[in-house]
C-alpha cells in the first residue's frame, strides 16, 4: 500500500510537471494578455512598459523556472483578469463545476443502473429495446445540440426553466452552493441533464453488457440451480460483480465529464471551471490556464487513485501492485 501511494504521488508530480510545461509552452500562443488589460488607444510604449513590469519580456525558460519556484510554494501565479492568485480563482469556481458534475453523476447512476439491469434481465422485451435504441440515439447527438435544444424548448418557448447561470447561491464557508435554494435547483436541471446525456447511454450499455455477461457465468447458473430467490441472484450476486468494471470505467469517464463541462458550461453560462477555462483562453489569462490544467490533472490523479483503491476493496482477488 505504501509503495502504491508513493507511486501515485510520484506519478502525480510527473503529471503536474508535464502539464505545467505544456501549459507554459503554449501559453504565449493563446494571445498577449497586455492587449486584454489595456484600452485600445493606449500607446505602444505604455504597453511595452506593462509587458516589462509583468516579466513577459523575459525568456520563456526564465519565466518557467520562476513559475516552478513559486509553484513549489503553492503559488500558481496571478490571474490578470481576476486580479487574484489563480489558485484562489480556481477554488472559487470549483464548487460550481463539482456540483454540476455531482448532480449529473447522480442522474447517471440513478437512471443507468435500473435501466441497464432491466435491459440485461429482459433483453427481448419491448422496453429494453426502447432503452437500447434510445441510448444509441443519445450517444449520437452532440452534447451542445442537446443543450441548445433544451434552452430553446424549456427556456425560450415554454419558459419553464432558466436559460443560464446558477441562480441564487448560498455561501457556506467559502463553498458557494446552489443546493440550498429552490432557484439554485431550478438552474441545475438543464445543465446537469445535458451533461449527463453524454455518459448516460454509455453507462446503460456498459451495465447491460457486463450484467449479461455475469448472468451467463457458471456461478449464476449454479445459483439458479440452487433455487435461490431471483432478486437475490440479480441484485446480490450478479449486480455486485458488474459493479467492478462499472467503477473502473466510471473513474475514467469522470475525467471526460469534467472536460465536457467546457461545452455545457459554455452554452449555459455556468460559472464553473469549464466556463472559466474557455474565458481564460479567450482572454489569454495564461496563469489561469496553467492553474486550471494542473487542477484538473490533480483531480484525475486523485480520482484514479481512489478508483484503484475501491477496486482493490471490492475485488480482493486483485492485488494492488506493490501492496505489502
Amino acid at each position, binding site marked *: 500500500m505504501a509503495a502504491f501511494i508513493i507511486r501515485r504521488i510520484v506519478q502525480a508530480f510527473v*503529471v503536474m510537471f508535464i502539464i505545467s510545461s505544456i501549459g507554459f509552452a503554449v501559453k504565449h500562443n493563446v494571445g498577449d494578455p497586455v492587449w486584454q488589460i489595456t484600452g485600445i488607444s493606449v500607446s505602444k510604449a505604455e504597453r511595452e512598459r506593462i509587458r516589462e513590469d509583468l516579466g513577459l519580456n523575459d525568456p520563456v525558460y526564465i519565466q518557467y523556472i520562476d513559475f516552478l519556484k513559486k509553484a513549489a510554494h503553492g503559488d500558481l501565479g496571478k490571474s490578470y483578469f481576476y486580479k487574484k492568485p489563480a489558485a484562489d480563482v480556481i477554488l472559487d469556481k470549483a464548487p460550481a463545476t463539482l456540483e454540476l458534475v455531482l448532480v449529473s453523476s447522480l442522474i447517471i447512476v440513478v437512471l443507468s443502473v435500473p435501466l441497464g439491469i432491466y435491459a440485461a434481465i429482459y433483453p427481448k422485451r419491448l422496453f429494453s429495446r426502447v432503452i437500447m435504441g434510445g441510448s444509441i440515439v443519445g450517444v*449520437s447527438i452532440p452534447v451542445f445540440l442537446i443543450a441548445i435544444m433544451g434552452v430553446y424548448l424549456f427556456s425560450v418557448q415554454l419558459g419553464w426553466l432558466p436559460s443560464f447561470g446558477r441562480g441564487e447561491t448560498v455561501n457556506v464557508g467559502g463553498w458557494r452552493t446552489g443546493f440550498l435554494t429552490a432557484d439554485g435547483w431550478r438552474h441545475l436541471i438543464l445543465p446537469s441533464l445535458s451533461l449527463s446525456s453524454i455518459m448516460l447511454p454509455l453507462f446503460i450499455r456498459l451495465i447491460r453488457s457486463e450484467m449479461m455477461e455475469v448472468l451467463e457465468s457458471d456461478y449464476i447458473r449454479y445459483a439458479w440451480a440452487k433455487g435461490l430467490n431471483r432478486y437475490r441472484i440479480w441484485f446480490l450476486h450478479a449486480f455486485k460483480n458488474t459493479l467492478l468494471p462499472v467503477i473502473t470505467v466510471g473513474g*475514467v469517464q469522470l475525467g471526460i465529464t469534467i472536460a465536457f463541462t467546457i461545452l455545457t458550461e459554455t452554452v449555459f453560462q455556468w460559472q464553473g471551471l469549464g466556463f472559466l477555462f474557455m474565458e481564460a483562453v479567450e482572454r489569454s489569462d495564461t496563469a489561469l490556464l496553467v492553474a486550471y490544467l494542473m487542477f484538473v490533472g490533480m483531480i484525475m490523479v486523485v480520482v484514479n487513485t481512489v478508483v484503484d483503491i475501491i477496486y482493490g476493496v471490492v475485488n480482493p482477488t486483485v492485488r494492488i501492485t506493490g501492496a505489502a
Partner: protein
Amino acid sequence: MMDHWQRFKASDLFYDFKRDKVAIVSFAVFVLLFVCAFSAPLIAPYNPYDPANIDIMSSEIPPVWMAGGMDDYILGTDAQGRDLLSTMIYGMRISIVIGLCAVLLQAVIGIVIGLIAGYYGGKLDGFFMRLADVQLSFSYLMVAIFVSAVLQAAVGVGRFAEIAVPFLIIVIGLAQWPQYARTVRASVLAEKKKEYVEAARVTGFNSHRIMWRHILPNCMSPILVLSTIQVANAVMSEAALSFLGLGMPVTRPSLGSLINAGFEYIFSGSWWITAFPGLLLVILVLAVNLLGDFLRDVLNPKLYKG
C-alpha cells in the same frame, strides 16, 4: 477478388448482416451519405466555395415549403447566402474526411504504440501507458485546444484556411490514440502468450514481422469495432471543436461549424441553418454507431474498457 467476395458472402458476418434490418438500413444510409458527400461537385446544386454563387442579398432564405422560400434553394440559404443543401453536402464531405482520416491517424499511432508496448512490455510499455493515462484524463477537447494553439503559432494564421483540414485531423488523431493503444495492447498481451507466436519466433522471424504479420491480424476484431465507434466520435469531436470556434474556418464549413454558425440564428427564426446540419450530423453519427453496435454484437470483441 471474386474469391474473396464469395468467401465474404459465406461468412458469419454477412449471414448476421442479412438478418439484421437495423444494420442493413444503417449501412445503406451510411453508404448513401458517403456517396453523396464524395460526389458533392456532381450532385450539389451549387458550389458553396465559388464566390460567384454566394450573394449576401439572398441570405437566410427559408426552405422551399415555407413562406418566402425559393425553388432554387430547397433547404433555404444560410446567413451568407449560400445554398444550405449544397453547403451541407460539402460540409459533410469535410466532416467525413476529417472523421475517417483522424481515425486512420489515431489507428496508426495507437496500433504502433499498442503493438510495441504490448509486445516488448517493460519500461517502454510503462512509459506509453502512463502517457496514455495522462492524456486520457484530459480528453480531446483540452488537448485539441492546446495543440491548436501550438500549430497555429507554427504555421501562422494567414494560411490557416489551407491547412485547416489536416490540422483538425492531426488534432483529433493525436488526442485519441490512447483508445487504440490500450485496446491493441490488451489484445497483444493476450495474443502474445499464445504458442503460435512462439512458433513464429522458433521459425526465426524477427519481432517486426511477428508483430505486424502474426499478432496484428489477430487483433483486428476489436480494432474494427473500435474504429466504427471512433469514426462516430471523431465526427462529433470535429463538431464540438467547431462549435467552440476551434474548427473549420467559416469559409469552408463542416457540419459542426455550420451548426455553430446557425446557433446564433436559432432565436431569430432562421432555425433551418442549425436544424438541417444538426439533423444530418445526428443521422450520420447514428448510422455509424448502429453499424458499430452490430459489429460489436457479431464479433464480440473484448474492448478495452474506458
